[in-house]
């Protein structure tokens, strides 16, 4: 299986006629690494036999998170779309690692967008090379998409902020070296950098999940967790805006991740349909299986086009919140359809083996995480109604 596919290569040629060879070299090399180093251990990551820390670090050392960042901080300065395709490849090779890396990269992107030059110089080089790991802490036990109702507070005391409260369902919690924390000050939700370890910062146990079992998810607790006032990112009271901006980009990436998951479920189905025999012929010869194969492939191609289109709009500097949400809603729901069809094609083997149903379990997270399908549909409608005025 080639992780960097002919379809992806053709899209790079179409979108970037002047630079596609360079981008394809980067993606092809990364794809080879994923194919050889991550794809084979993915089943063991799902069962917990292999932890993702080592493979994730190796992947970050390869440059996975350097792709779309400025060269002055150690990035490659390539378009966001190239990173999105790399994420699709990673979703195909190893979904849990992809989720962890995606969150890590979203924090780095947030810092690149909103942090001071001094903060960027201090944190970005380490994040881009994987020397440090980041975590995004927004969701709370009683608030998700309605971030404005967050209960976590940051109170200014002298030259410090004291953070109190807790965050829930946090990816990379307990493993990360840097936490991007959203907490309310007198001026409203604000954004802070909390390094780990810091007194007053603690973590709950690893939550048992349906899928994405390789990535660590837990509660993050702040008890009079004091950080220097210089760890405020941007302006006080603008944290909700920053979170939204970070999440818009992350939604494109989550879409790409789900296209990647759908792709591997599809490829396994194709191979199985070619070799499984029933009534004296392979099941790939039956029309109803062919219908499934056609629908799966069409769904995946559509998802890929949507996330790449949203990436291109983002690169143009225009408002891309609707396009990002469209890509996420479609691709996360599409991925579930494709993985469900994959289970159906595999029959009893699909229902009883981790090797196949883990893809459905992994995909299931992302109609919920980083903006539910329901909330994002409201966002799309609101944005499109406003655009049409």
């Amino acid at each position, binding site marked *: 299986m080639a992780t960097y596919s002919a379809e992806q290569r053709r899209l790079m040629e179409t979108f970037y006629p002047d630079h596609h060879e*360079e981008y394809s*070299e*980067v993606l092809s*090399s*990364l794809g*080879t*690494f994923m194919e050889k180093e991550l794809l084979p251990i993915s089943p063991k990551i799902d069962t917990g036999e292999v932890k993702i820390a080592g493979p994730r670090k190796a992947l970050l*050392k*390869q*440059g*996975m998170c*350097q*792709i779309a960042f400025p060269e002055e901080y*150690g990035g*490659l300065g390539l378009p966001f779309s190239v990173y999105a395709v790399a994420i699709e490849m990673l979703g195909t090779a190893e979904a849990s690692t992809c989720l962890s890396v995606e969150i890590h990269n979203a924090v780095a992107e947030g810092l690149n967008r909103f942090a001071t030059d001094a903060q960027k110089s201090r944190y970005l080089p380490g994040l881009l090379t994987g020397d440090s790991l980041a975590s995004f802490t927004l969701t709370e036990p009683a608030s998700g998409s309605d971030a404005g109702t967050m209960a976590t507070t940051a109170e200014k005391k002298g030259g410090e902020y004291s953070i109190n409260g807790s965050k829930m369902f946090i990816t990379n919690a307990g493993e990360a070296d840097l936490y991007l924390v959203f907490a309310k000050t007198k001026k409203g939700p604000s954004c802070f950098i909390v390094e780990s370890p810091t007194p007053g910062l603690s973590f709950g146990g690893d939550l048992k999940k349906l899928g994405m079992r390789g990535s660590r998810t837990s509660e993050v607790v702040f008890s009079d967790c004091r950080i220097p006032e210089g760890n405020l990112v941007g302006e006080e009271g603008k944290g909700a805006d920053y979170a939204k901006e970070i999440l818009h980009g992350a939604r494109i990436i989550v879409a790409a991740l789900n296209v990647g998951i759908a792709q591997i479920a599809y490829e396994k189905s194709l191979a199985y349909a070619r070799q499984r025999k029933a009534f004296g012929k392979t099941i790939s010869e039956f029309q109803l299986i062919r219908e499934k194969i056609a629908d799966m492939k069409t769904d995946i191609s559509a998802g890929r086009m949507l996330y790449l289109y949203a990436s291109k709009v983002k690169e143009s500097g225009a408002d891309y919140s609707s396009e990002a949400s469209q890509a996420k809603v479609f691709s996360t729901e599409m991925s579930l359809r494709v993985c469900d069809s994959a289970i159906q094609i595999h029959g009893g083997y699909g229902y009883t083996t981790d090797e196949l149903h883990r893809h459905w379990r992994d995909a299931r997270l992302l109609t919920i995480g980083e903006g539910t399908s329901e909330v994002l549909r409201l966002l799309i409608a609101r944005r499109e109604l406003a655009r049409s005025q």
Partner: protein
Amino acid sequence: MKIAVCVKHAVDETELKVDAGGNPQLKGAATRMSTFDKNAVEEALRLKAAHQGEVVIVTVGTPEAKKTMKEALAMGADRGVLVSADPMAIDTRRTAELLAAALKKGGPYDVVLCSEGSSDMYSGLVPPMVGELLDLPYVGYARRIEVSGQAAKVERALEDSVEVVEAPTPLVASVVSEINEPRYPTLIQIMQAGRKPVEELSAEALIPGAGQSVSLVRGMKAQAMARKRVVFEGPPEETAKKLLEALASEGVLPR
């Protein structure tokens, strides 16, 4: 230490299609760096790390071969020499002559490394020919190379034994895949590889008449291999024993 590595931009045999008549479809076939050449590049980089110096990649190829050149440079080689010729249109003798001429022009090198054979044609003829043409000692199938002073100690992986030999440097050696695990270039190294110098030499300028081969490949056919489809039934301890006996009787297990 000045090290040269001869590499080939080869047909990707894993993607090669064969038509109904058994003819490999070479036209338009996917290409890549010959698999074992990565081991040769890796070994050169290890020698450089131990002894300082320079690693130069030398290849005979079409402009398409720049991809392989860039990959080798991304792994960490310092510069490249590309001799323009189509390796599919010339024979191994001419390829070796062009490589030797390019090595003479840019040399002398302390060590010239090749892989045991290209992953598409796998004749294994070029490395010893290069040694002969350069009038240097040739050590084939190296699984370990240690250079000390003006000599190299080399472990040769032969079919059923390992031979340890010593040879004076400069020398030409071919390596087997077990010699090392090639590194993955990082993305930054890939981006930077395009800025490393690559000298392009015309085959005609190196050796007038270089396009003329002494042998001609008239055609190639895929070989169909019939499977015996032997099935052993019974408990694992019995079937394992039967399998071992069958493999031994076929002569595929070392005795």
